[in-house]
């Protein structure tokens, strides 16, 4: 859920860039001697729709935040489960080290046997 809202805000950023780009394209087209009416129409429609989308989306986000914001800091954390997971990984690493030592010891014994 958090990612969706943040992703929506990133889309809004792209829309804002689109607004400026459309405005620039329209002015560029108007500066030419022969203007392409279709292109102007398309760019204008896109400009208006982008502006409306930006306004609606940002207004919606602000309304949502007005409802859910409490003013208090959030005190949840993932520390305990992260610590437990870290200890489990340490156990696995320790077992791996010990098995490695055991393997090396067996190899040394076999080499000695073969040498003798």
């Amino acid at each position: 859920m958090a990612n969706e809202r943040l992703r929506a805000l990133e889309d809004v950023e792209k829309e804002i860039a689109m607004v400026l780009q459309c405005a620039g394209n329209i002015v560029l087209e108007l500066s030419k001697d022969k203007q392409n009416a279709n292109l102007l129409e398309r760019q204008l429609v896109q400009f208006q729709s982008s502006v409306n989308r930006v306004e609606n989306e940002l207004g919606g986000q602000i309304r949502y935040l007005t409802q859910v914001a409490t003013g208090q800091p959030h005190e949840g954390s993932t520390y305990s489960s992260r610590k437990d997971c870290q200890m489990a990984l340490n156990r696995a690493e320790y077992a791996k080290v010990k098995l490695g030592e055991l393997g090396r010891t067996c190899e040394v014994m076999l080499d000695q046997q073969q040498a003798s």
Partner: protein
Amino acid sequence: MATQRALPQSKETLLQNYNKRLKDDIKSILDNFTEIIKTAKIEDETQVSRATQAEQDHYEMHVRAANIVRAGESLMKLVSDLKQFLILNDFPSVNDAISLQNQQLRSLQEECDKKLTSLRDEIAIDLYELEEEYYSSSYNQWDSVDLPLCEAYRRRDSWASPRSSCSSSQGDNEDTDGPPTQEVNPQIHLNGNAGTVPIEKS
């Protein structure tokens, strides 16, 4: 729709400020763009000479274009502030993120422990066989206090059914005080003294 709760003054002021910035920036973009389009219209009658009028229109368009860009950048800053506010104050999504992360970490820990437990069981089986082989050979050197694992299991089985013959493959170094009165609970000690079990004497 839920009614607005009593937010702390700073948060409410902040959100109202966000609203104001949004409306002002959108209005700035639309107004300046409309004025640019109006200025682009060529008029036959002008109060000053065409060159002067053209220069004035050019400057005005520059300023309005700069205003549009400034409003766009202000909107970008607003989006960035909203993202920050969302991350810090959107409790439902923060709770979801925390519980998801906890769940992932816990499942990773369980999987790790499950694999370690199965590894331990496999090694215990191999160790049992190796001990049986070793202690039944001529190289064994165990005393009466610490029994090898295979011997401990054998004795446990013989105590469980007293009529069964307690056959031990080691004839020497046995405890001559008689069978212990307490049951031995053979536990696999994998750290350090692997495979040996201390007997509690009565």
